[in-house]
């Protein structure tokens, strides 16, 4: 029951972007009837890309995400100062100006450089945690969904137990156990969050394995491995892609939240959450709000970008779904 609830809730975002996407689907239909013969065959991805480009919010999201990735990847080139480099202790808490657009922090470090370096931590955590989630969640979900029966019951019971523990608490416990640091953070997020992916893949497989083409493949003599790899997995790809798009900002948020409460990234290293933690220390908020504002905006904008992109991707990849 709780599962249907969360699925329903996560489906609703698609609704908001539906008018635009719906219109584009209609025009596609008309065009295809018109020149069915002389039009080159398009595949799912080209089609999805075309639909995505027509969705204004999705394009904004894609732009934000692209900027974020470029900044994170090129941090050493973009940031004028090193990750923990002190520009000048006498400049501590200087407010934003033309030379230091984001101002200077309490230790005399350039805030702009800190935020840029922080993007790198966020991207690494966001992407690597998804790898772990896929690495564990997809096989577990696939096995449970494909074989069903006792295997399914056992695996899903384990998933239920992990699911019952509030996820953030579990991540905090794990990081606290292994100690702070980048690797332990994305490992902990991955080890906790794969259950959502496993449930998703299992649900897909349960629905797909009864389909006629899967039966046909089985009758034609395909083994379990080949049915899973050639038929079930490719057809479950789009919901997995959408889940990953929403998983990245969730992981970024988790890292920021952990670092904010002081169990995340080790201090000299810059992370958005940790910058927020430093900037929000008593006394600074009122006199030097720039130390808090820029990292908070960076987190907010990144979340916004990924949500827009995720919504758009869902509509673009599944045109049937947004009626």
């Amino acid at each position, binding site marked *: *029951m*709780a599962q*249907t*609830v*969360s699925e*329903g*809730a996560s489906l*609703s*975002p698609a*609704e*908001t972007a539906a*008018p635009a996407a719906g219109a584009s689907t209609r025009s596609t239909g008309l065009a295809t009837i018109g020149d069915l013969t002389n039009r080159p065959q398009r595949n799912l991805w080209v089609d999805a890309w075309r639909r995505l480009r027509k969705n204004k*919010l999705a394009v904004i999201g894609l732009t934000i995400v692209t900027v974020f990735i470029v900044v994170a990847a090129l941090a050493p080139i973009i940031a004028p100062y090193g990750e923990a480099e002190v520009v000048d202790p006498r400049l501590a808490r200087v407010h934003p100006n033309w030379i230091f657009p984001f101002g200077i922090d309490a230790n005399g470090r350039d805030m702009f450089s800190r935020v840029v370096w922080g993007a790198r931590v966020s991207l690494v955590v966001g992407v690597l945690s998804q790898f772990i989630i896929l690495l564990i969640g997809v096989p577990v979900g696939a096995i449970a969904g494909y074989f069903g029966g006792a295997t399914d019951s056992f695996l899903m019971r384990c998933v*239920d*137990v*992990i699911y*019952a*523990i*509030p*996820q*953030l*608490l*579990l991540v*905090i*416990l*794990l990081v*606290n*156990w292994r100690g702070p640091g980048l690797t332990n953070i994305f490992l902990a997020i991955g080890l906790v969050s794969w259950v959502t992916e496993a449930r998703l893949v299992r649900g897909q497989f349960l629905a797909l394995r009864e389909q006629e083409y899967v039966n046909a493949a089985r009758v034609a003599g395909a083994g379990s491995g080949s049915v899973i790899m050639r038929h079930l997995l490719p057809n479950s790809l789009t919901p997995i892609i959408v889940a990953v798009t929403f998983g990245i*900002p969730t992981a970024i*948020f988790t890292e*920021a*939240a952990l670092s*904010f*409460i*002081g*169990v995340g990234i080790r201090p000299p290293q810059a992370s958005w959450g940790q910058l*927020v933690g430093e900037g*929000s220390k008593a006394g600074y*908020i*009122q006199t030097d*709000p720039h130390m*808090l*504002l820029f990292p*908070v905006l960076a*987190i*907010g904008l990144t*979340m*916004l970008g*990924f*949500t*827009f992109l995720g*919504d758009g991707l869902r509509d673009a990849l599944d045109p049937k779904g947004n009626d």
Partner: protein
Amino acid sequence: MLRFALNRIFWFIPTLLAMAAVTFVIMKATPGSPFDVSDKVSPEQIAQLERIYGLDKPLPEQFKTYVWNAMHGDFGVSYSARPQTVSQIIGRTFPISLHLGLMATLFALIVGLVLGVLAAVNQNGWLDYISVTISILFFSMPSFVMGFLLILLFAVWLPDRGIDLGFHIGGWDSPIDWVLPTIALGAAPLATISRYTRSSMIEVIRSDYVRTARAKGLTDFKVVLRHVMKNALIPVITLVGPIFAAVGTGSFFVEQVFNIPGMGKFFVTSMQVKDQTMILAVTLLYGVFLAAMNLLVDLLYGVFDPRIRY
């Protein structure tokens, strides 16, 4: 339905035990003793304290004792705030968190429903766009980002420009201190509710019986109130579970942001000082709370929608 409820409650017991075991194992694996707080405490004193609290016994036995005591309502003494018991501390901090959580939930429900209904009734009109924009903005903002943005706007930026609405940076002393945390915590669930309400309403508005109701000459207001809302709001009930999950974990950071002496803030402190009894109890409490909420929602769903059978 009774059988369904009993079945769920029955399954909850092993889940809770497993939950306690997982937390227990992770916690015990975490290096460092809860009593090793400063250099002033000698290794002998630490050993003695550990003996007093039974931490020198084998782990399975410690776990058994813990579960046995917990079943009798005894969650032990807080290691970091001795001699206060865990129950005392939770009894002091939990009501504050609950208070904040209830306010945030009410805020999210009322504003979310109104926004969702207005958006659906004015589909593709300017009200719709405003509502959708608000919900997508709120939806993607984590509660602590929202909290700091509110603080920066209402407690720093506006007062600097002479508009002092009386908001403080943090604290929990007067009712005005409740406003910003409630908004910060309620924003994300508000967005979920309004999105869900909107799509559910639009679906019902298109249905045949609504056309019939209009055809027999009912006013728009009556149609929306009696026919659309009554049916459209059933699926929204299911959101109460996820909302409590969001509010529960969100209050964690909102309490840090606004310096509210609730359970979430205390949990973070317990984590830093390895107060094992506190950590265990709070984790279990969150788990029980979430599970109870989900069960309640499932049962409510059956009450409101007679088509559902268990």
